[in-house]
């Protein structure tokens, strides 16, 4: 991938992000923030790449592993917490009746 095409990817990704959450009810702001936050843990892919390409370089393996740990902490925790919040919303319709 050339740098220019990566810049295109960056630009289009940003525009997509702006469009996607244009209209959100305030109710969902906290879950949305938490969900988006979990997605930002996508750096786990970078950490994985680092580990795979370390080629036996132990300090690099350790850095990659710690980085992966931090990222997965973000991802797993983020998605669980979001689910916990959203579970409260979906519970209500059944309670009404």
């Amino acid at each position, binding site marked *: *991938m050339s*740098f220019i095409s*990566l810049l295109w990817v*960056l630009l289009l*990704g*940003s525009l*997509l*992000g702006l469009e*996607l959450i*244009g209209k*959100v*009810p*305030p*109710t*969902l*702001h*906290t*879950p949305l*923030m938490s*969900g*988006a*936050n*979990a*997605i*930002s*843990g*996508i*750096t*786990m*892919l*970078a*950490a994985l*790449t*680092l*580990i*795979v390409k*370390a080629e036996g370089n132990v300090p690099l393996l350790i*850095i*990659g*592993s*710690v980085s*992966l*740990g*931090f*990222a997965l*902490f973000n*991802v*797993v*925790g*983020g*998605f669980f*917490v979001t*689910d*916990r*919040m*959203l579970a409260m*919303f*979906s519970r*209500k319709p059944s*309670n009404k009746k």
Partner: protein
Amino acid sequence: MNLPVIIKFVIDLLAVLLLALGIKGLSKVKSARDANRLAAFAMSLSVVGLLSYYLGTSGIAIQSWIWIIIGSIIGSLFGAILAKKVPMTSMPETVALFNGCGGMSSLLVALGVAIFPISNSVENLNFFKSLINEVSISVSIFVGAITFTGSIVAMAKLQGWLSTPGWTQSKVRHFVNIVFAVASLIAFFDLINGNTSSIWLLVIVSSLLGIGVTLPIGGADMPVVISLLNSYSGIAAAAAGFVVDSQLLIVAGAMVGAAGLILTQVMCKGMNRSLVSVLFGGSLSAQSTASSGSGEYTNITSCSVEECALTLEAANKVIIVPGYGLAVAQAQHTLREVTKKLEQNGIEVVYAIHPVAGRMPGHMNVLLAEADVPYEQLKEMDVVNPDFPATDVVLVLGANDVVNPQAKNDSSSPLYGMPVLDVQEARTVFVIKRGMSAGYSGIKNDLFDLPNTSMVFGDAKKVLNDLIGELKDLGVGEK
């Protein structure tokens, strides 16, 4: 193009699509939960894609597998445990903590690549030494470090572990932060010039900058900061995507970055603060004490829980205005008990939710949902404001600045122009509050002085419990 490349290409594409659908779905109440799971699925899919690609091309060494497994298990375990245990009231600081760790991850990746240059993917061998690589590493470190320290400071302040030091309210802080910023820039360019040792300078000064910028910000503005830092962590991820040459990372990071910015904007609007004043203005109370914050209350009416119960019993329509004080007291369940009783007596009950009630937009909705309050009873500010004149009783629970009429009447007030709930229009207003202390903004609330406002002093939970008792004695809610 060989098979592994094609497979990874398809999987990445699918993952981006699902992530986008996930974020979109998160913006609707009905689909939100499924959307969150979809996004989680997309993330795991992307991992499978990456691993299968390396298995199919260069292979993955046993040693690498070991470190992958160690990192994954520890990270996931802590994440899952924290997510299960944390109470709903501390959601803002939890998001801050998760967010900080995401930033840390990007920082570490860039640091690792900078110290031990790795051979890049087969397609572009000569790409990696280039300027662009240095720039993306520097950006990743810079943004990652700010995200990490900023988030940790935000978390510590929300938890009450850190207070706002006095010097951060003086002009000195601008000078200090400018020094950090300039030093980061110098390190940044030095690094791009190929001086690898300045990487540590960059790590240190950008970490200090993150602390220096976040520390002076007052508690009321913290949600805005967290949202902004959430956006930063997306940018850090995108920068890391440039470092390891991954389109998927760039797209996902950019989406989160953009989403965070929008949320930040929404929150600023709700509080009538501009982003600039949040970031550089310091804590609101510091500037305002001189102007209108010093006013004395002259006409406070306080009343007993019993009077409050009597008035409620006679009402036809009641509006509840919950605020962060309610959440702190963990009183949302007790509140629900009270409103159940009122409803059983045929009294119409509605909850008025200010856009920034609680500490994050939507935070109050989550807390009330936890207490089984029906979704239909939660009314947004614009919907509920015209209803106040026809309302008999308003119960203000731990909310303060969002019901301050100054925002409408007093153009000299720092709150002027902030959208507020017009509770003073109702026939009777009860404010349940611990004491006469000011809200987050530190500004006197004119509402408390109005003749139709009565203060019920006490802890929200205790007052509500007493209220249940009084209502029982009056026979409310027992048929």
